[in-house]
């Protein structure tokens, strides 16, 4: 790993990573406290409403809402749109820095004028992406644990199950990142790359929600990245979503490799 490149990347991403990490910690802490604490007074009555049921089914990816209790409801904290928005916003911003961002701001000439191959650049930036993913995940876990301190012990999740959710969450992070790298590698404009990835993820999210109450969506729901991320099943049933994680990992790896190949072979124009 090239020390100078790493220094530059870390210098550029740490403020945003810190900010997003703190935001995730706060949101996770709050959601992990709010869902079990106010289950009886607010969420249980709300879940009797059809619209809320549909929304919850979409988010949690399960039909069995009747089996939800205060403990399992807190799994929403790992699929809540706000949580996903924080993680994905940071991830998309980070993964579209190279080459789209560098070409867009014209600094790619400076980078490519250095004695490093494009693959070296790509690997260096990717390692920063993987590391910041760990930081964000750790922030989420920390928030979850802190929020859990304020609730009754019997409502807290078992560490083993939480670990599986975290692994699934990180696999999701890799898949979304892989897509962002590929789109970035094909683009000269960062705004365009961010827009494309955002549109795909929004479509993916909506498809996952529609899947629960619109039959045609069910046939193509396997295309949604969230189809392979269902923390409730893990937390409630102690399921081990090996197949889902494998799909996310494979998709992430393939997309990331395709991005690397494209970047290493494409022409770089800034004018």
């Amino acid at each position, binding site marked *: 790993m090239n*020390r*100078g490149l790493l220094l530059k990347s870390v210098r550029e991403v740490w403020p945003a990573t810190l900010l997003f990490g703190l935001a995730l910690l706060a949101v996770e802490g709050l959601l992990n406290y709010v869902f079990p604490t106010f289950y009886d007074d607010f969420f249980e009555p709300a879940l009797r409403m059809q619209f809320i049921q549909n929304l919850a089914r979409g988010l949690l990816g399960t039909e069995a809402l009747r089996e939800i209790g205060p403990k399992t409801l807190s799994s929403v904290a790992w699929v809540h749109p706000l949580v996903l928005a924080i993680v994905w916003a940071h991830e998309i911003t980070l993964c579209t820095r190279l080459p789209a961002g560098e070409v867009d701001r014209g*600094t790619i000439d*400076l980078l490519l004028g250095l*004695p490093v191959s*494009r693959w070296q650049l790509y690997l260096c930036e990717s390692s920063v992406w993987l590391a910041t993913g760990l930081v964000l995940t750790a922030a989420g876990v920390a928030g979850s644990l802190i929020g859990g301190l304020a609730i009754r012990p019997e409502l807290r999740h078992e560490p083993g199950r939480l670990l599986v959710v975290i692994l699934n969450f990180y696999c999701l992070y890799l898949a979304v990142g892989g897509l962002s790298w590929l789109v970035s590698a094909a683009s000269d404009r960062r705004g365009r790359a961010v827009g494309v990835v955002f549109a795909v993820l929004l479509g993916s999210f909506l498809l996952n929600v529609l899947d629960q109450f619109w039959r045609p969506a069910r046939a193509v729901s396997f295309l949604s990245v969230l189809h392979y991320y269902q923390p409730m099943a893990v937390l409630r049933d102690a399921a081990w979503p090996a197949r889902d994680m494998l799909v996310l990992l494979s998709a992430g790896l393939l997309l990331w490799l395709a991005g690397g190949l494209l970047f290493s072979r494409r022409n770089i124009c800034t004018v």
Partner: protein
Amino acid sequence: MSVIVAENLSKRYGRRMGIEELDLSVPEGTLFGFLGPNGSGKTTTIRILLGFLRAGGGSARILGRDCWRDSHRIKRDVGYLPGDLRLYSWMNGHGALRIFGGVRGLDLAAAGRELAERFGLDLTVRARSMSRGMRQKLGLILALVHEPKLLILDEPTSSLDPLMQELLNEHLRSLARRGHTVFFSSHTLSEVEHLCDRVAILREGRLVADESLEVLRRRAGREVIIRWKAEPATPPPSPPPFLRVRQQQDRQWRCALAGPIAELLAWLAPLPVDDVVIGRPDLESLFRSYYSRQAGAGA
């Protein structure tokens, strides 16, 4: 030995031609001027040489290595200043030297400080607070600091004041004396004329000249002003083939000399000449003629 060798180099952008069948050879230790009007293909050539663009045809080699495949290895020995330099806004001079040094595996701090002192740049100022000239100086320092065998400078004097330009020229001359090669791209003849010892001229993606300045100077005409004596009141003689009279006013001729000065002096010797002014070689006109000739007409 040639540091840069390009053979039949071509690049198209869709229907638009970037460069076409470009042959170029830059000998070691040369101050090589790469001239051409805007859009003539200078930057495309440089981007192919640096491995940013893949050539559509032909080959380009720097220090014997292929510019596309071995691009990153080549750049160990290359310093590059982009034409449209953009720096990271958060970066100051010290930080830039630390990062570039880290990438190159060298400690560039001392050499960078020395250059900054020479060019009058404060290394503590962040790029976002720098003027264009200051950013250009930092870009030059980053290109020069590791003393590369080959320097590729794309219009380096833009936004530099004349004093700084002279300072840079001095520095480049001293590098060339020590065997370094400078590839200096510009669309302004005057700066290349004062610095370079060899010039290639590009027009519409094609090379129209690649010669030493010495040869070009010889080829370029000179302006000559001849004033004939009033006495004896004889009509001025008819001009020889190497002298083209552009303007005739009273007893004064304004002419273009297309041959050696000695021939002119020999022709003038027996004639009633009152005064003769022989100008410097008019490279500007020569270059303008290269720039404006129809495509396909070689030099």
